[in-house]
């Protein structure tokens, strides 16, 4: 019942929130002021008001002025908290830095810098993707805040909204605001260590018919076997294979110039995700050792290169490959 209610209410709630917030928070830098900060008693504050109400009833029934006073005092304290909470967070300047892209087996980290040139802000909390970081004091020197998020499946994501809130000073009132930076980050497939060596392949568009079973042969230039065609050189026929299968196969040699180490989707075992993980590992290793590699996915080939941009592009391609919800909310 509750779940059902939640199901109905959640989208409505979202829409209402979107309408209320409009585009005020869709920015990478934000200074908190009266138009961008929301204030309400916190859960604890409502509990506190409830106790104040109980005290009020107690006072009325026993005609007890002291209990009455304490009930009024509690009410005023909540009002004071609302004011002070707002005053505390006002003037807080937020600047979105980045959410670095990374592998799916690591959590993402949201990075922003905060400062308050006007006054000190205390006990400010940042909530991003369910995780919260507390900053005890924000002053005029800008400081970086990191909020760790949980792991996510591979893909490209729009940076989710960051919630900034504080219940200073007593936890009775809550002020909050949002920062919605317009930025993306990629989650690459989790690298999975393996010992499938990279092998050199021609990068021409000739269709690949055999897989890399011969990759460990020790001959760098030896690339694979092809079905014998009429025009092929007899010296290149693999007689060993002919003896076994009675099939004329041609040993394929390629020249150094148009060949490169290829991270090939087609040559790796497992399902899509598994293969992508293996590829991610290969690319990661290549980047560490600065080996030029080419990346081949069905219907897509990235030429060999060893620049950092190239590796990045390769990983991004992996992140997006056959990923239906490539861009997530």
């Amino acid at each position, binding site marked *: 019942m509750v779940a059902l209610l939640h199901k109905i209410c959640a989208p409505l709630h979202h829409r209402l929130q979107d309408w209320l917030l409009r585009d005020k928070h869709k920015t990478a830098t934000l200074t908190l002021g009266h138009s961008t900060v929301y204030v309400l008693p916190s859960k604890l504050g409502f509990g506190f008001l409830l106790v104040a109400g109980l005290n009020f009833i107690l006072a009325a029934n026993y005609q*007890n002025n002291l209990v009455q006073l304490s009930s009024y005092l509690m009410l005023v304290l909540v009002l004071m908290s609302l004011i002070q909470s707002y005053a505390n967070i006002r003037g807080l300047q937020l600047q979105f830095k980045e959410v670095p892209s990374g592998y799916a087996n690591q959590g993402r980290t949201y990075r922003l810098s905060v400062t308050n040139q006007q006054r000190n802000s205390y006990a400010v909390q940042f909530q991003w993707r369910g995780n919260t970081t507390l900053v005890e004091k924000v002053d005029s020197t800008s400081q970086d805040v990191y909020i760790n998020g949980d792991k996510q499946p591979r893909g490209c994501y729009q940076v989710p909204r960051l919630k900034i809130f504080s219940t200073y000073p007593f936890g009775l009132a809550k002020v909050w605001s949002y920062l919605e930076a317009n930025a993306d980050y990629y989650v690459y497939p989790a690298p999975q260590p393996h010992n499938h060596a990279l092998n050199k392949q021609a990068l021409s568009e000739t269709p690949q018919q055999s897989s890399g079973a011969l990759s460990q042969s020790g001959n760098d230039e030896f690339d694979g076997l092809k079905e014998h065609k009429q025009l092929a050189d007899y010296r290149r026929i693999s007689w060993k294979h002919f003896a076994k299968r009675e099939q004329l196969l041609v040993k394929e040699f390629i020249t150094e110039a148009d060949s490169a180490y290829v991270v090939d989707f087609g040559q790796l075992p497992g399902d899509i995700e598994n293969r992508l993980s293996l590829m991610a590992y290969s690319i990661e290793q290549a980047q560490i050792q600065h080996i030029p590699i080419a990346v081949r996915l069905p219907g897509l080939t990235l030429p060999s290169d060893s620049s950092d941009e190239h590796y990045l592009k390769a990983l991004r391609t992996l992140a997006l490959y056959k990923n239906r919800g490539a861009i997530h909310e």
Partner: protein
Amino acid sequence: MSNFASSALSFIYIGILMLLATELPTMLLSLLLLLCLWNLLLANKGLTRPALLATNILAAALLAVLFITVDLKQSVLLFVTMLLQASILKLLQASSAKQQQTVIVLTFFSISTVFLYQQSLYSTLLVGLFFIALTIALASLNGLPTTRLAIRKSIYSLSIAVPLAALMLVFVPKMPAFWQLPGANSAKTGLNERIDPFDIASLAKSDELVFRAEFNDTLASPPYYWRAMLHTEFDGRAWIKAKIPAQARTNIDWPAYSGSAQIYLEKSANPWLYTLGDGVSRASDVRNLSDGLLQRKDPSASSFKYPLSYRPQLPEALSRYEYQYYTQLPQQGNPLTRNLARRLGTKSNDANAFIAELYDYYRYQGFTYTLTPTPITGSDTLDIFLTQTQRGFCGHYASVSAFMMRSVGIPARVVSGYLGGENVGGSDYLSVYQYDAHAWVEYHDGVRWQRFDATAVVAPGRLNGSLSQVEQLRQEFRANLELGLLQLSSFKSLNWLRIQLEKIDYTWTKWVLGFDQQKQNNLLKGLLGSQFAQYSMALVVIAIALTLFIVLMLSSRQRKVQLTFSAKQLSRLFDAAEASALLSPEQLTPVAQLDYLATHTPQLKAHMERISRLYVQTTYEQQPLTKKQRLELKKLVNKSIKIIG
């Protein structure tokens, strides 16, 4: 941080338990105190907290103790104790900040229940301290970097909130009770519905205040016999209150009641009220009885206030039934007393003559007044008192006298109440304490009810004031009094202090505790005029809104930085430049920033160079500017701001 909160809560609960120590059963009290101490230990040693199961077992055990030790009829005490138990157990469990916050919120309710039992100024101050401590604990659990900041914030907030709350108390119209709640019927007084003094070994132990009487015109003249109850039946040992309640009085002749006073009753669960002579009250929740006494319609434990009109008792003829009622005695018992009465009776021919004989008898037969009589047990206690011990306090004399009167056919009854009251420093009010409790006899001389008080002959000074003021009994009185300020009253300065505290407490009771709907109405009408009194609520809202607005304004003040003259000028310039988005987005040194301005806004170039030069000279070269240069700098900055704007 959470240790601080946990320890603070332990101390607060210890404090609450101490304030309620007289109400709670000793066993339960000590168990709860032990739990508090345990929690203190846990909080400070960082030990692991007990498991949920253990706490539940503990809770069940405590509940059992509660039901065994607390009378189930005392529903309020039961409720308060259960609340305290639950809170303390929850505290014992609370390890996370969130749980402790919940306990703190609960504690705000717990400390209010203290006020059901204790409302003196000192308990209020103590509870106020708890209030401060609770807000500090709340703040410290809320991620504030230092405890000092938490303390500062709490005290700041409360120093604004308390006056506002007081304002609300005064101006927000009071609500009548929503529904009838059971009273806390555990208050104790020195009076009892049963007068049986003979097994008592010592009296006058408590210096608790019973009520205060504020006389509207002039102080009535002593002796003050505060009548509370009539004890009309003798059961062979004790005088007990009439089983049939007196009739409510109809058509009262108000103008005939010449004296008037305001009575401020301390909290009491007893129905009886106090009057001088024949009294009536206009208060709606006071029942005026036909025997000239007053009763509370709804005895709850809270303190109470009522106006009293009084006059001496008027002539009144007894019906035959009444005559019989007031002269009946058990058939058997106390033969010696009966004999003595008959002997005295033969000497006199009417009631008043008998009374005179009786006075003489007490006066000349060596009777003494004491607060520490010899306890008498067994039957015929009156005989033993009369013939053997001959030492006693009011209860003894009243019991014996009434018995003797009845045995010779004079209608008589024992009255209990208070005698005297302390008149502090010439003020117009009397304070009556438990040690002023008194019993005397009223007999009917055929015309009216007359008072007979044997104490008047045995200890004549007792009539003129409070027991504490009777020189003769002072030593004895003090020996029997619990250690209190009163015991030290022989030191002059301490006595003075006691009187001052007493005055403060009086003011407190009258103005704070006794501030009721009627007083509020009068005050509002006096302050606002009768037309505007109804708008007091609006006034409160405006006042609170205004105060909160001021608080917001005050807290918006920017950080204070001590700037030199040139730095001030520069910061003015930069502020203006920033407003026009001319400032470099990067953190630059002041000189570099001026350079940036000069290159990006060419018309400022000359100004900026000069400003830069002057700034470097005064700030880094540390050569103070001449008057002329200061003026120049200021002018340059002003000009530049104009260009920028």
